[in-house]
């Protein structure tokens, strides 16, 4: 199953609370993990990085190694690192602000290569997002648990995505939770409901182009596929349309860039999506009851046909 949703505001405002409410309304579609892609104000002079360090006890030491690797990749910290306040947790979620001079892929690869933590048998560092505006926060559990630990409700911005996951194709852990960042493209994120059946072939093709993937999740692939097409000169809409024929399987996904949110739906129209718009608030979600959390009154909603592509521009 999985539930996905998005919010876009005509003027910056609270997107965190709205997305948490929507994902709570969709919790019956999956509580393996919940995540949010939040677009705050654009900061030209820095990139915001969201990381997960698996072993909290070794956080200080890991942060030193992260900073050293950052320097080697041509970046500097703009401010001291901050992290979540769940002191009893085994892992830590870190937020960095770094100079935009950094080689994003080089830093990402170096951080991931910092090595597995012997005690937890998982990579010690996961890189969840890079962006002048984008911040991805995702964790295991339902929307309320994730919102509580990661302080989502107060987040203000222009738009954002949410996802609640019922895993079908890959691991149940934070790294395979949504949203995904289109590594190494800053500010590109995706939430996806579905399965891509030509995943391995499409991934091999992108790997031949030099892309590295941070998970075995098919949704990560879609975001890189779209970002790669845009890098090669396609418009957002052209890239979304390309994916409808390039990808096999059943899917409805929301892909976000700083300029807005795009939707693409597979050719069999299996996975649902409903949207509504009123008073400068545009909301889209897997089920209408999630929309009703944000827009309580009855208003006209729109649904989408097979192979349809839509863009909600900021």
């Amino acid at each position, binding site marked *: 199953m999985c539930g996905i949703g998005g919010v876009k505001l005509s003027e910056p405002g609270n997107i965190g609370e709205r997305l948490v409410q929507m994902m709570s309304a969709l919790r019956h579609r999956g509580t393996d993990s919940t995540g949010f892609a939040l677009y705050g104000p654009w900061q030209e002079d820095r990139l915001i990085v969201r990381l997960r360090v698996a072993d909290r006890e070794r956080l200080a030491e890991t942060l030193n190694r992260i900073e050293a690797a950052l320097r080697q990749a041509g970046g500097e910290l703009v401010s001291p690192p901050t992290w979540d306040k769940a002191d009893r947790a085994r892992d830590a979620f870190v937020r960095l602000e770094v100079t935009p001079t950094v080689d994003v892929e080089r830093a990402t690869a170096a951080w991931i290569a910092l090595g597995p933590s012997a005690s937890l048998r998982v990579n010690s560092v996961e890189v969840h997002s890079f962006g002048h505006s984008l911040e991805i926060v995702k964790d295991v559990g339902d929307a309320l648990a994730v919102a509580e630990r990661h302080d989502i409700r107060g987040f203000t911005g222009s738009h954002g995505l949410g996802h609640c996951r019922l895993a079908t194709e890959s691991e149940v852990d934070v790294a395979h939770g949504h949203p995904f960042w289109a590594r190494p493209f800053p500010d590109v994120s995706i939430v996806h409901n579905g399965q891509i059946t030509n995943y391995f072939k499409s991934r091999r093709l992108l790997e031949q182009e030099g892309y590295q993937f941070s998970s075995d999740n098919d949704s990560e692939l879609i975001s890189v596929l779209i970002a790669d097409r845009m890098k090669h000169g396609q418009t957002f809409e052209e890239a979304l349309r390309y994916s409808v024929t390039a990808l096999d399987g059943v899917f409805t996904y929301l892909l976000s860039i700083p300029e807005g949110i795009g939707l693409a739906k597979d050719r*069999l*129209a299996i996975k*649902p999506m*409903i949207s509504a718009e009123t008073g400068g608030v545009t909301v889209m979600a897997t*089920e*209408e*009851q999630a*929309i*009703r959390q944000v827009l*309580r009154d*009855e208003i006209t*909603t729109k*649904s989408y*046909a*097979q192979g349809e592509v839509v863009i909600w521009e900021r």
Partner: protein
Amino acid sequence: MGTMTVVRLDADTLTPRQLNEKLRELLASGAEAVVENPRSRHNLGVALPGPGHVTFKGSVGYYCGGLSNGGSIAIAGNAGWGIGESMANGFIRVRGSVGQSIGASLRGGTIVVEGDAGPRAGVAQKGGVVVVGGNIGFLSGFMAQRGKLIALGDASDGVGDSLYEGNIFVAGRIHGLGIDAVIAPPMPEEIDEIESIIAEVGFPLKPREWKKVVAGRKLWYFDKREGQTWLKV
């Protein structure tokens, strides 16, 4: 019948199960119920008996009216997936539009949608009537075995795919037929029947160019000379 009391229920204060238990009791006694604040929740008004009536004062989610065996339901807003799924008998009217698979496996009764219906309307229909005032979505009537699916608007691609003995009547444009679906001219008495159904449920009568979609029956029996048809499946 004397004076009928209308019982008001607030879906904000009841779980779907509590609400459905109350509705079953009320409808079995022939009462009229009004449900406020449905807020597109799923599984409201499921498995209702006759002969009473319930009005949802807003949109409902998935499976409203499913498994019912009588009674009538009016939905003032939109409805989600699987409205009236496997309903044996009863009447459902949706003021707005509906999502996927309206009347899936419908066995009897009538479902009316004033707006559009999403993909797979009347999928695996086994009886009863579905009337859609607007358009019907992709793969509508898929594998329908019996009953009538009537669209006053257009049919999207793939209409009537892999049909058995279900009948689909389309007044508007057919964007594309499904595998093994063919357009047959409707008989005058079939048109009379369709028009009496739509008049009865309150759609205005006007000249319409009815197209009837039925099975081409090539998928009913395996014939290796028809291999290409099977490969498309």
